[in-house]
């Protein structure tokens, strides 16, 4: 039996794809967070890290392409599955209580689509250094010199300038909150869909899922919160 057509045609196969692409993006989110948290080690560390990343242009493109494929598959499968799932119940109940179903599990398509919109905004705002920033700063003009004399983009100042705006910070915190909400169900469901769960491991999988979701939220949200509390202000002088 051909593996690929079977994967894309059966409901279980589509769920495997959802799970694998979801876990792939989760791995990226974790590595990305580890990079972001360098902000707390000061401008020098963050800027040289960002500069190093941009010098590895080829691998960066490979990662971007992989991510695009992951996102494309995850979103398209989600849309197809949601459509099939709705079609399976053409007539709704007058009273429906969905016993046992958590809020996150009932709203995955919506939290997922909102996260997608947030990611698109986030890319425009930071990576593409779009001039249409809410902050009124020209991020591309933020330059600095590293300790070894190389000139590079001042990422530290950009982050501090961006997050000093409560609107930007608030939007970001809501975005990562939605992501965590999505993950609180998504990680557990991914393990289930891949069959990596049994009675003995059930509690551990649940704890891992909610632990990872909380960790990502606290990690990502700590940055705007710290900036709003005054961290890194001196970089703006």
């Amino acid at each position, binding site marked *: *039996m051909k*593996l690929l057509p*079977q*994967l894309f*045609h*059966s*409901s*279980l*196969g*589509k*769920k*495997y794809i959802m799970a694998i692409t979801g876990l792939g993006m989760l791995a990226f989110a974790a590595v990305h967070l580890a990079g972001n948290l360098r902000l707390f080690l000061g401008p020098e560390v963050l800027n040289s890290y960002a500069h190093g990343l941009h010098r590895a242009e080829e691998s960066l493109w490979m990662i971007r392409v992989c991510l695009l494929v992951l996102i494309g598959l995850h979103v398209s499968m989600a849309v197809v*599955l949601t459509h*099939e*799932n*709705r*079609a*399976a*119940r*053409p*007539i*709704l*109940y*007058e*009273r*429906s*209580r*969905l*016993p*046992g*179903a*958590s809020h996150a*599990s*009932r709203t*995955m398509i919506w939290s997922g689509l909102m996260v997608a919109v947030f990611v698109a905004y986030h890319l425009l705002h930071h990576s593409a250094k779009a001039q249409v920033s809410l902050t009124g700063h020209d991020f591309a003009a933020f330059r600095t010199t590293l300790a070894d004399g190389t000139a590079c983009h001042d990422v530290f100042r950009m982050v501090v300038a961006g997050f000093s705006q409560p609107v930007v910070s608030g939007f970001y915190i809501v975005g990562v909150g939605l992501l965590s909400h999505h993950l609180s*169900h998504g990680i*557990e*469901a991914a*393990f*289930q*869909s*891949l*069959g*990596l*769960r*049994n*009675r003995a491991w*059930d509690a551990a999988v649940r704890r891992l899922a909610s632990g990872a979701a909380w960790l990502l939220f606290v990690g990502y949200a700590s940055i705007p919160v710290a900036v709003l509390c005054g961290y890194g202000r001196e970089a703006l002088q």
Partner: protein
Amino acid sequence: MHLSLRVWRQKSASAPGRFETYEARHVSPDMSLLEALDGVNEDLIASGGDPIAFDSDCREGICGACSVVIDGIPHGSRHGTTACQLHLRHFRDGATITLEPWRARPFPLIKDLVVDRHAFDRIIEAGGYVSVKTGGAPDGNAIPIPKTNVDRAMDAAVCIGCGACVAACKNASAMLFVASKVSHLSLLPQGRVERERRVLAMVRAMDDAGFGGCTVTGSCEAVCPKNIRIDVIARMNREYGRALLKGGSPELAL
């Protein structure tokens, strides 16, 4: 006690349906909900009306025929209980109870609260059996099976095929039902020999019938009258992946 039953009435799949309210007066708390419906039907018949059609057979929670969504929950809100075993003492005196049929595209409505659950039969026909020749009846313990496997297989084998899992799932997914059968048979040595073909064929029949996919909400296990847990679904997902990787085929080898 006295109850008001708001029941979905629909003459046939193509006729329009609506809720009608019936009064069940002087019912005893020791009666089951289906017995209250029997009482309403007797009154309806006596007054020349059309009795409410609903499914039931054993009335002791083992056949899986009864199928009513009670106040938004298939088989009602008591855990591990079929509609036929749901007693009126669990309702407030004077309460209004809303009764609806299972709602899922693969379960077309026949009349009132009765739906056609042949889709489940087609899934069983696809692979829910063991086709090896066993010869004469073997000795009771001739085939050694680990105790945990026996217990797990039994936990899944208690499925009565009622379809409440489908009715409760927001996606009308039949995963809990199919996974119960797949788990039960793949855990035992007699069923193991056909495990790849079985899971591929049963999942294909499930998809073809038009059931939705599993989004792991857990509504199915919350309503299952036999308390089957969604770990059987994880087992089926594992079995399916294994069968795909081994290059199994859903067709019967001729």
